[in-house]
């Protein structure tokens, strides 16, 4: 069966070990984390963890969300609707440049992709690009023939479109009620 990719936004206490508490739950329940990103927020002592994971179906992912909700440092878990959320990732790519011709070509590619050149050396260029996988994968493919020396990516970050926020009670409630009359 084709697995579906789901994006979870998890708000947690910013305390030591919280990332391993959350991430180990995923592997314990048999899921592989495709992408993970964590960072502190405007509220003190709260960290937002964005996790992307493959699951069979909505029931599976809801079970997983409820497992995560049980962890005590977790404030809230939101399953982000992919069509109604913005997903972005930052990728840094260091590319080999043999000569000025090649350098120009790479600069052109990055212009097309609205990527920015963040470092130039005599025989390398470092490019920063922000986008969804389609965009980042496309530029990575194009740059590959020039020789990628090194690469780093932040993992996907996601926010819902519009004024909805994670802590909105009614939405969380809606998710708790999944599975009634599923047959």
């Amino acid at each position: 069966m084709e697995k579906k990719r789901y994006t979870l936004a998890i708000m947690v206490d910013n305390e030591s070990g919280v990332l391993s508490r959350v991430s180990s739950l995923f592997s314990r329940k048999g899921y592989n984390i495709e992408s993970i990103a964590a960072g502190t927020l405007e509220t003190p002592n709260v960290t937002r963890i964005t996790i992307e994971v493959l699951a069979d179906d909505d029931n599976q992912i809801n079970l997983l969300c409820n497992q995560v909700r049980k962890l005590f440092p977790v404030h809230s878990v939101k399953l982000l609707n992919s069509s109604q959320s913005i997903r972005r990732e930052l990728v840094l790519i260091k590319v080999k440049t043999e000569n000025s011709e090649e350098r120009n070509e790479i600069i052109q590619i990055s212009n097309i992709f609205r990527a920015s050149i963040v470092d130039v050396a005599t025989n390398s260029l470092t490019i920063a690009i922000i986008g969804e996988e389609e965009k980042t994968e496309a530029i990575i493919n194009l740059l590959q023939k020039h020789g990628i020396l090194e690469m780093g990516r932040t993992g996907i970050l996601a926010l819902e479109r519009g004024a909805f926020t994670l802590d909105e009670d009614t939405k969380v409630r809606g998710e708790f009620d999944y599975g009634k009359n599923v047959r």
Partner: protein
Amino acid sequence: MKMTGAKIVMECLLEQQVDTVFGYPGGTILNLYDELYNYSDKIRHIRTAHEQGASHAADGYARSTGKVGVCFATSGPGATNLVTGIATAYMDSSPVVFITCNVGKGLIGKDAFQEVDITGITMPITKTNYIVKRAEDLADVIREAFAIARSGRPGPVLIDILKNATAEEAEYVPMKRSYHHLEGRLGALISRASHNMKAPEPELADIEKLVDMIEYSEKPLLICGGGVVRSQAHMEFEEFANRIDSPVAVTVMGGGGFHGRNALTTGMIGMHGSQASNMAVDNCDLLIAFGCRFSDRVALDPTSFAKQAKIVQVDIDRSEINKNVVTDHHIIGDARRVLDMLNERITPKSHREWKEYVFSFPTQTDYVLASETLNPRQITDSIDRLCPRDVIVATDVGQHQMWTIQHLHYSYPGQLLTSGGFGAMGFGLGAAIGAKVSHPDKIVLHMTGDGSFRMNLNELHTVATYNLPIITILFDNHTLGMVRQWQTLIYDQHYMATDIGAEVDYIKLAEAYGLSGRRVTNQADFEEALKEAMACGRGYIIDCVLDIDEKVKPMVNNGAPITKFLILD
């Protein structure tokens, strides 16, 4: 007032009305034991032979009293020896607070003597765990830990305290338990809707829908799971079952949640479930499970499980809904509260025809009499006849466990102590110690097999030291009977590593510990020994000789449809 971390721990235990601690001392936890010395008139310490025994004893104490059990251990091997006990408590939702001490702040991460990352190790098997580095954090953490252990779906919590935090002084402000939720960590936690420490209130619409479903059901079946026991909802459950006149199948963990002598009980359900239970599952039109996660030992084949029925799951833990079996309706809430709400709304029903069908199948299995040995029914029947009705029964894991659960009648939560989820051999004697310490006036039976007994028989030492008159009933068949049964039926009789021989003289073993014992091969001798054991006032081993090929019946194979019996009788 200012006091050492160790003293703060003691004061916090008293805040929680802890009167008994099971544990084992060691280097890093010495400060705690030194302070325990000053508190020994208020807190009783039971030192076991091994930390695993202490962990099971604290668990048995918790299960039999409904209070939070407490267990101490030192760092390193002391802490890792708890792991099996913690996992056992976790799988069976038993509230236990484990307190370990680790090496001091300056040594953490240096691979110091007896250092281990026990919070890392126990992360998957605790509700939560803590590492406390400063004495001033202790009271806050302990208060939160106890609240978490006992709230919602109960479970174990571990607190690892660095040795320096037990020696340093900090300000301690006494606080009654009823105020704990107002301040500090616990206060902050509770202020969040997601972890308010209250059981979720069942939704009225959900209750009314179930009432409707019951109204239209002609062939209902109830499953009594461990949640009924943890919620002490046995009275409410019985009233409900009587009212809707529905047969009741009981899971391993549900033993004690429904009166075993009520005529509505179909006995155990699942892999070794009775024919009546399993046939009822297959033929019912409405299945209502209370506090049951439909584990692979109950819903062996989740897709064919109760295939003709609407399945309703009542659980306090949201994450259990639809986990193993896909349900048609569910209610989130504490079993007792849900049952109360249902009982207020249910009109009495009668299901004579359906009951006649279900009870046309046996609820128990008979065993053939052999001349040289006892059979399991003779043992359980005699216990049933001779022991007081409130006898507490702790089991180990294996054939004897199934026989004990199938054939004895349990009537209240905490009467049956068994490792149902984790299946930890060696659980029984520890649990029996915990139960006997908390219930000195009740008879406590430790049902075990010769395989399980050898896992933790060192705890006979604890039985002797503290003069705990626990009666060990040893189902002695010189083999790891349950594994052998699988080898017989499924693995072409390749008896690899299961026959454990007869070289141990258990009576001499009892004597070595200053206890008594008797070897029996027939029912009359067993009864005589049991009477003697109940009268003697000290630990007693009854070594019951069973046939090596005695089997637990019926049996359904792993993953098979629940009525596809591999063996019947």
